[in-house]
């Protein structure tokens, strides 16, 4: 690789503080470890995103394709100031979220992909990335949009977001903002997690990001219909 030319292509990056991992107790009693990953994890994460690319249900295809591109772009230094958090249960990857810093004051929320459904995994991970932007990076607000009705309900309504003029980075979609004030107003109700993560849980999470089989991922996303008695 010609690093001289590459240096022109790579974006400059801001320093971002580390996100301390946390553990969330789910409705099942299971423990969801939420932690930050770096670029090295991206090839593994893409394996989990790939099965979603042709699933129109709940716009998984759009979210999957875009997340795939964002993660790949980050991995190959073509996206600026992106961060990625993942959720794992017993090492198994159950969700991915990512965001990009726009300025020292504003972050742009990109995507939330829940692989395990019905456990508020997406909601917990979305809350975690808001926590990172507001509490750890010190942003004044996060710009957000939704590409699915579920996303709209989950983010826009649950957090009572403020509408903004202009466009979100993901296209012409209407942007909304989670302000610092809104975040703290909703934190007790929506942001879960305990720190530090017990050592044994953290070790399991860091040992390997386990990816479910393509069939399992599709079953989780599509629901019971694929598996039975029809």
């Amino acid at each position: 690789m010609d690093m001289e030319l590459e240096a022109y292509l790579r974006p400059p990056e801001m320093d971002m503080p580390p996100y301390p991992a946390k553990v969330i107790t789910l409705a099942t009693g299971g423990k969801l470890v939420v932690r930050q990953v770096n670029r090295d994890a991206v090839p593994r994460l893409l394996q989990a995103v790939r099965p979603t690319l042709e699933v129109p249900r709940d716009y998984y295809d759009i979210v999957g394709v875009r997340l795939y591109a964002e993660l790949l772009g980050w991995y190959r230094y073509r996206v600026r100031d992106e961060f990625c958090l993942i959720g794992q249960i017993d090492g198994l990857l159950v969700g991915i979220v990512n965001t990009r810093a726009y300025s020292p004051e504003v972050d742009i929320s990109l995507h939330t992909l829940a692989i395990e459904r019905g456990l508020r995994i997406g909601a917990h991970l979305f809350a975690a990335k808001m926590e990172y932007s507001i509490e750890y990076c010190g942003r004044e607000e996060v710009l957000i949009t939704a590409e699915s009705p579920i996303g709209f309900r989950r983010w826009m309504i649950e957090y009572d977001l403020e509408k903004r003029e202009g466009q979100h980075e993901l296209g012409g979609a209407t942007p909304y903002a989670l302000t610092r004030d809104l975040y703290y107003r909703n934190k007790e109700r929506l942001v879960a997690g305990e720190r530090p993560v017990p050592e044994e849980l953290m070790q399991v999470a860091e040992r390997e990001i386990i990816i479910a089989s393509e069939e399992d991922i599709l079953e989780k996303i599509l629901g019971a219909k694929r598996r039975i008695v029809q």
Partner: protein
Amino acid sequence: MRPVVVAGAGMIPFERRDEDTLVDMMAVASLKAMDDAGLGDRAVDAVYVGNMASGLFNHQVSVASALVDRLSLMPAAADRIENGPASGGSAMKNGFLAVASGYADVVLVVGGEKMREVIGPKATDIVAAMTHPQAEYIYGVTLPALAGLFTRLYMEKYGVTREHLTMVAIKNQENGLLNPYAHIRMKITMEGVLKHPQAHINSPVVADPLHLYDCCPVSDGSAAVLLTTEEIAKDLKKPIVTIDGVGQATDTHTVHERSDPTELKAVIESSKKAFSMANAKPKDVDVAELHDAFTVLEIAESEQAGFFPLGEGAKALERGDTRIGGKLPINPSGGLKARGHPVGATGVAQIVELTWQLRGEAGERQVKKAKTGFSLNFGGFGNNVLAFVMRRKS
């Protein structure tokens, strides 16, 4: 009256079924029931369809006529029966009466609802259309809201706690894991939905004191049974299951007009009628399917249908009496809480489950030696209730 046999039973998995129309779902459940009966080319004389609100959910009415055409059952008589969430039970009653009276020899009863075509708040609003328009609905009443008020009163009067409510949810979701037709197939824990300091984030308040996991899901689905006479059923290879008792009763439209809102008079009366017709008593029942749209209802119905004294339902739950393997397993299917609640389908799905239980075909959730079953389909907020007693013939 002639004895009425459930010759065939079938259903489709309850869940969100984006790809299917309401009539598609009902047709598949019907074909399963007809295949299960094995009556060959014998004509179906009449079709009764339980459906609450296809006009509002799906912009389609006259669904019984559409179903008969889809199944090529013409010239069978066909009616859609609307009775709120007890529509399925009412369709069952009409099918029962048609066979029992001699009006028809072979009757198809189908329950179906496709609710997920609209978003959750809209579905809640459509279901709330059954409340009193001037005295309840205009003030924002929904079924979860009524259930929340009822639950608070029941807790104060009988000492039911949020732990008890959660025990119902845990039990029924465990049962749902054993039922391949269940919408919710996920084990939950007391810690995860109640005890953990952050459990309120997993199970937020819906209508205090009811939280998310106290409420049934909004589902799409359909269930069907084929009813016939003992004479026609005598050559069938399956064990004979009969509907021996049917009871229906009503109560005031508005809940606040009841002298004691915790007393579910329509549950009490419909159950008494069903037991009386069947010449049975609650103690004879081996398995029950109750209408647990909200967890508190399983406890209240288990008392007011006559299985436990008032105030004892929660204690029976604590003892494990209502688990599979307990003295009186309640909702081995997972109930509305886990199997799901496509409103018009529920009353028929309960009969399907009891048929499978009484035949010994319920798989991992089979209640051992079940010979007598009971179901309760609760319409409105208890203003129109149907009860059924079923038996396996030796």
